[in-house]
């Protein structure tokens, strides 16, 4: 009797423990499933690329993250956590799209694509569902071994969506250059984001790359978690060139372009400075000038805005079998031919657009706008100022040239130099103006009042706009730093379509489709195959409302 009761009690306790374990497991599983609806999820158009290729990316942006701004940073990172390339792209509601130009000299290996918002950098370890991608160097002669991720916990294997998503094709057999037509039927489902893609499979990367859950950390201490809205944050540090110590002199920024943008930053004792460039698209030409006392020389270093892996992943190395090696070699050759016959379609590196956020010069509307071309030619700036610049004094005493501007309100001249600008760039030596002839000058603006820009004050402004906008006069000037900085990427779509030249040229495309499926019913697609033979995979990767990743695919053989 006592034994039976003890047995019953033990059974009950065992049942309770079992129940507890099951609940904990279920809880952990549900946590794992739902983390993606608080994370950015990156999709790539391919599992591998050749150095010099363009990797096209899409990122799913959950609604919960939209408070962090609308600029997503996409980055390509090496196995050792080194930043290879990065891009800032605009996100439109729940999606961001962009590309990363894979450097031509990048070594063969496994690389990772991550995404983050700048405002997330103080979130401790930041989670992101990224992708691993193989890069094959186009000069590599024989690839024998390749790294694979050993740490399987970081690999995210999507659930099968075979029951929820159908990929229907009109034909069963396909040959090279055939038109592939079909539709993706998603029916009633809970997917919030779906990407359909099609590519010829390269077996090694197809097997060993995929979604990965990354923990990322902010190792660039000092970049503020500033929510970037239609603009990018540029950070850097100022130091004394002689001592190497951090310097906290005022840093002036000029961004040249159709309209010149001006800003300033007063660094703290760490020498860090930050600028926000609103609506800046393309590659900006920055001119940074620390305001120096005497002959002090400075150094400026820009801090790349990226996040590093919180923990180093473990990697193993595996042999590439001859069949796999042959396909890799073919893909390298194919990419070469593709470039040869199709060219590179990415925009020029010099494209840049940035509207003036104030709609007027930062020093306000000028009191006088003089166009010297409308007057007789004058040989130097002294003559120009005497003849054309009313309310401006050019004083030449003891070989020292000083400028003074009239203060309209007080009816007297200011007792210090005005702010002097050439093509919108602050200039601190009057000697730059001395030899300017009226034929060199497009226009001159005079501001005859004490203006403010933030906390800076200018006792009058002289702005000379030259006909020559190359700013070559800046070269060799001390404490003037000219830098090219990528800002928001211009929106651009990948071109997977065949070359218009038709059959006369070889077509060696490996990718054919990479689009967001925006229909809940039947989503038709079509594309033309290339001359590449092999297994064609058409796949749909999807995210459910709960943040779970799903995947379904169809593989057909192209003969």
């Amino acid at each position, binding site marked *: 009797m006592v034994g039976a009761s003890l047995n019953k009690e033990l059974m009950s306790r065992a049942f309770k423990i079992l129940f507890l374990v099951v609940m904990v497991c279920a809880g952990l599983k549900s946590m794992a499933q739902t983390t993606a609806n608080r994370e950015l999820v990156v999709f790539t158009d391919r599992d591998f690329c050749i150095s010099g290729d363009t990797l096209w990316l899409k990122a799913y942006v959950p609604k919960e993250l939209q408070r962090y701004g609308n600029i997503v940073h996409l980055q390509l990172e090496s196995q050792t956590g080194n930043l290879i390339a990065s891009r800032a792209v605009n996100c439109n509601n729940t999606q961001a799209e962009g590309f990363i130009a894979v450097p031509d000299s990048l070594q063969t290996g496994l690389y990772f694509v991550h995404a983050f918002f700048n405002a997330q950098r103080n979130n401790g370890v930041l989670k992101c569902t990224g992708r691993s991608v193989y890069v094959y160097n186009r000069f590599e002669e024989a690839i024998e071994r390749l790294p694979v991720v050993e740490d399987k916990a970081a690999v995210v294997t999507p659930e099968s969506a075979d029951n929820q998503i159908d990929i229907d094709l009109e034909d069963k057999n396909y040959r090279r250059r055939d038109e592939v037509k079909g539709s993706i039927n998603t029916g009633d489902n809970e997917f919030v984001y779906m990407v359909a893609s099609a590519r010829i499979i390269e077996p090694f990367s197809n097997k060993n790359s995929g979604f990965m859950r990354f923990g990322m950390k902010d190792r660039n201490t000092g970049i503020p978690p500033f929510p970037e809205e239609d603009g990018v944050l540029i950070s850097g540090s100022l130091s004394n060139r002689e001592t190497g110590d951090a310097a906290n002199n005022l840093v002036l920024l000029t961004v040249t372009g159709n309209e010149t943008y001006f800003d300033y930053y*007063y660094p703290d004792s760490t020498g860090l400075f930050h600028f926000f460039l609103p609506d800046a698209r393309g590659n900006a030409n920055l001119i940074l000038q620390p305001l120096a006392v005497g002959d002090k020389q400075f150094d400026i270093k820009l801090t790349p805005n990226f996040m590093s892996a919180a923990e180093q992943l473990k990697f193993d190395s595996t042999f590439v079998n001859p069949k796999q090696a042959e396909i890799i070699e073919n893909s390298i050759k194919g990419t070469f031919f593709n470039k040869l016959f199709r060219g590179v379609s990415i925009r020029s590196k010099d494209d840049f657009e940035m509207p003036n956020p*104030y709609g007027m010069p930062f020093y306000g509307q000028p009191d006088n706008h003089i166009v010297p071309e409308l007057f007789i030619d004058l040989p130097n700036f002294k003559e120009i100022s005497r003849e054309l610049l009313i309310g401006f004094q050019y004083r030449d005493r003891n070989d020292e040239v000083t400028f003074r501007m009239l203060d309209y309100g007080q009816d007297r001249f200011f007792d210090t130099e005005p702010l002097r600008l050439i093509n919108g760039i602050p200039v601190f030596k009057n000697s730059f103006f001395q030899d300017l002839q009226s034929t060199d000058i497009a226009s001159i603006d005079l501001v005859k009042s004490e203006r403010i820009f933030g906390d800076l*004050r*200018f006792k009058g402004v002289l702005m000379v706009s030259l006909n020559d906008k190359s700013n070559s006069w800046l070269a060799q000037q001390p404490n003037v730093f000219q830098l090219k900085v990528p800002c928001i990427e211009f929106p651009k779509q990948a071109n997977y379509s065949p070359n218009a030249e038709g059959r006369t040229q070889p077509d060696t495309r490996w990718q054919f489709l990479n689009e967001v499926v925006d229909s809940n019913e039947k989503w038709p697609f079509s594309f033309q195959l290339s001359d590449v033979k092999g297994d064609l995979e058409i796949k749909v990767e999807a995210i459910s409302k709960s943040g779970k990743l799903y995947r379904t695919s169809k593989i057909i053989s192209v003969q």
Partner: protein
Amino acid sequence: MGVLLAFVVQAQEMGIDTYELNSESNNLQGKMLGEVITLDAEVNTYFLYPDDWVPGSLKFTNGNVFEDLRIRYQAFTDELITYNKNGRFLYQIEKELVESFTFQDGSQSRKFVRLTKNNNQQTNMYLEELYKGTVSLMVNWYIYEQSVSPYKDKNGITRAVEYHLRKDYYLYTEQDGLTKIRLSRAALLSRFPENQRQIRKLLRQNKLHVNNEFTMVNALRLLAENNLTE
């Protein structure tokens, strides 16, 4: 101290006054633009509203928002004046950039918006927004200069004018812009000639006698609710 002074002198010769800068000077969201001013006794005594510097905020047309400002409205020149606490100077904010500003006037929060009057000069005006709807009620605050017999003011200066802060009222629609209006039922009816009968009936039913700001706002709200502002 010597180094600091040298830096100040040097910086002035660079054409930029930089002293008193600190980390608060680094507003990443955008900078204020304006013109440094000094207020003479007359402006200080007669033209500024409210009587003291009050907390306020400002929004630029480009979306930049500036909070925690100490502001006053200069009703004579129709300009917004604020105090820069880092540099300790007064300046008038670039009017073309201002979309709206608000300040605390005693217990009341006042919102001013910048609108363009469609006269020959396309004048920019600051107007207080009393009611915002399809037809908004706006107030233009201005200084009325009245000639009087000479007298000595509180500073001992002989004057022959008196300054009075006055208000003009305007109805504003995006389509028609600003139309001056008196605060009366007749003026309201004349603004909507096609709906006069219904408006008259509506005001009567609601026992609304339009003769001040409050009742005019209520009347416009009623008109909007009953689609009578077309």
